[in-house]
């Protein structure tokens, strides 16, 4: 049986583990503007990233956006997922496709759509000014708001589909039994559905959180030049600054923080509802 994971395993080793080891090695080198990279074994890049208030704030922004988007997806996604899971009609597959629809459009194309909608002379501002509700365009683009809206629109389908798969496994009889015993719908949700759906909440949140932490195209295109998240900061170091060692260390810090937060998050959710 173990042989079954061999093809995928080899692929991962060749295409992910090996480049990551190389990147880890690069992260210990030193940057030199004239020679690009000088071989070294130093933790200097990591220290610099951790001590620099700018990168600390970029990391905090990234964490705040990822956490905010995850919570927003949970709140927005749960009712839809419940509705989808309990749907009996023949339209269910069509509904699933509709939910998946945002994923059929490329990230960049979707962002271009948001720019056309949120920009200073975009559709929303044109409508607001046309109706004389505002005199000057509202700053909707190139800020945290635009990034959160853009990211949520991409990752929401992941949350809905993960949740709905788990909710489908919760027998309807459980809810009916709760109602029978006098639980109001909200109580039945809080005491029966939600605890049973926790594996889905945990899986969906982890998936969405990881996607948000590593978001690249959306923050670049909708956040504009003044809004920085980690993935674009890593890219900047590699491509604009040619500082590969520092870029690599930022990449590992992002990886590490994402992993720790994911583990802590799922442990907390698990403990809260394990009775």
């Amino acid at each position, binding site marked *: 049986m173990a042989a079954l994971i061999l093809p995928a395993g080899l692929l991962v080793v060749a295409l992910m583990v090996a480049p990551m080891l190389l990147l880890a090695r690069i992260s210990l080198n030193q*940057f030199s*503007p*004239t*020679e*690009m990279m000088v071989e070294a074994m130093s933790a200097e890049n990591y220290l610099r990233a951790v001590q*620099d208030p*700018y990168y600390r*704030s970029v990391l905090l922004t990234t964490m705040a956006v990822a956490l905010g988007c995850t919570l927003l997806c949970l709140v927005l996604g749960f009712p839809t997922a419940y509705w989808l899971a309990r749907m009996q009609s023949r339209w269910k597959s069509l509904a699933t496709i509709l939910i998946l629809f945002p994923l059929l459009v490329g990230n960049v194309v979707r962002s271009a759509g948001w720019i056309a909608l949120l*920009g*200073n*002379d975009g559709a929303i501002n044109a409508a607001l000014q046309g109706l004389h509700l505002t005199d000057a365009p509202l700053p909707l683009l*190139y800020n945290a708001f635009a990034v959160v809206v853009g990211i949520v629109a991409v990752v929401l389908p992941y949350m809905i589909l993960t949740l709905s798969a788990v909710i489908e496994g919760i027998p309807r009889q459980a809810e009916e039994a709760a109602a029978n015993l006098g639980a109001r719908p909200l109580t039945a949700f809080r005491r029966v559905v939600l605890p049973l759906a926790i594996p889905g909440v945990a899986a969906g949140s982890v998936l969405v959180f990881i996607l948000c932490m590593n978001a690249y195209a959306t923050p*670049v*295109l909708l956040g*504009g*030049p*003044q809004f*920085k998240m980690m993935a674009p900061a890593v890219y*900047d170091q*590699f*491509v*604009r*600054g*040619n*500082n590969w060692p520092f870029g690599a260390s930022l990449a590992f810090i992002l990886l590490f923080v994402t992993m720790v937060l994911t583990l802590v998050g799922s442990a907390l959710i698990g403990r809260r509802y394990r009775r």
Partner: protein
Amino acid sequence: MTITRRLALSGGAATLSALTAGLPGLARAADGRVVVGTWGGDYGNLLRQNIDEPLVQPKGIEVLQDVASADPRKTKMLAERQARRGTYDISCLSDTDMYLVQQQSTLQDLDKGRLSRSEAVIPALKKSYAIPHIYSALVLLYNPDKVTTKPTAFADMWDPKYKGRVGFSDILYNTNTLAAAMAGGGGVSDYKPAEKMLLEMRKLDAKVYPSNEALAAALKSEEVWLTPMWLARGFMWKQADIPVKHVVPKEGAYSIVFEAAIPKNARNVDNAYTYLDAMLQPQAQTAFARKMGYLPTVKDAKLDADLMQEISLTEEEESRLVQPDYDYLQKHLNEYLDFWNKQFKA
């Protein structure tokens, strides 16, 4: 569809030939091909219309454009510098970027004997490792309806009456920083005064746009009125009815040359020389001037007087032309990118 033995065999053969295509000396030696790393958009289109199709393809050379902005292409060249076979046969970059990649020993020295057009090149623009393709100068663009007193210098952007009306393109952080340095008394070899000036500009509520195109949109909607920009870009924007005029700032006119070079690990060197020669043909050069407003780099490309007036500098303005200090940039550019990101934009 049923898979017959014949179909399977022909599919196998196609796969095999595709696999061997990249192997040295096997199925294909250096054939009639040249891979050009270039910007997309107008630049890429003009290369195709004026160089690839009329001048290079008739010689039986297939031209493949690898389109990306400069930074990823530079990174690709640096990443490939140890490789025996690189992606590009021709790399198109600005003079500053070209110098930076040349310093990492990615480029071959050009054999002038293999370039029939080398004599026609304006002497001041000649380099051992690249040909100059087109050039322009950094000027101050302003909206003549809003900025009623014609500005004369980069320093005029710091006039408090233009608070919130100065815009910068994020990708031009280098020239924006230089404009600030010049306004503060510095220059191509001293960006230090830019720090104080940029922090003051931050207080004046300057706007930063993610791309030149986003900046163009902001100039068009009159959200911003002033920006340091290439004269050629200003020419294109005027053509597109964006309300701008230009002034060659009294602090100096920083020149930019877009160059082309052959990487050391190019696979089709002969074709690359043919391509460089084509880039220097007068008809190709004038086409770039007409459409993009960049000046020809060869002495025998003739432009109409009207166009000349729009895109070139007067003799007096030319006397203020300054070349980049490549060495200084190589040592300090990263520092100023950091400053731009962390202190100015943040």
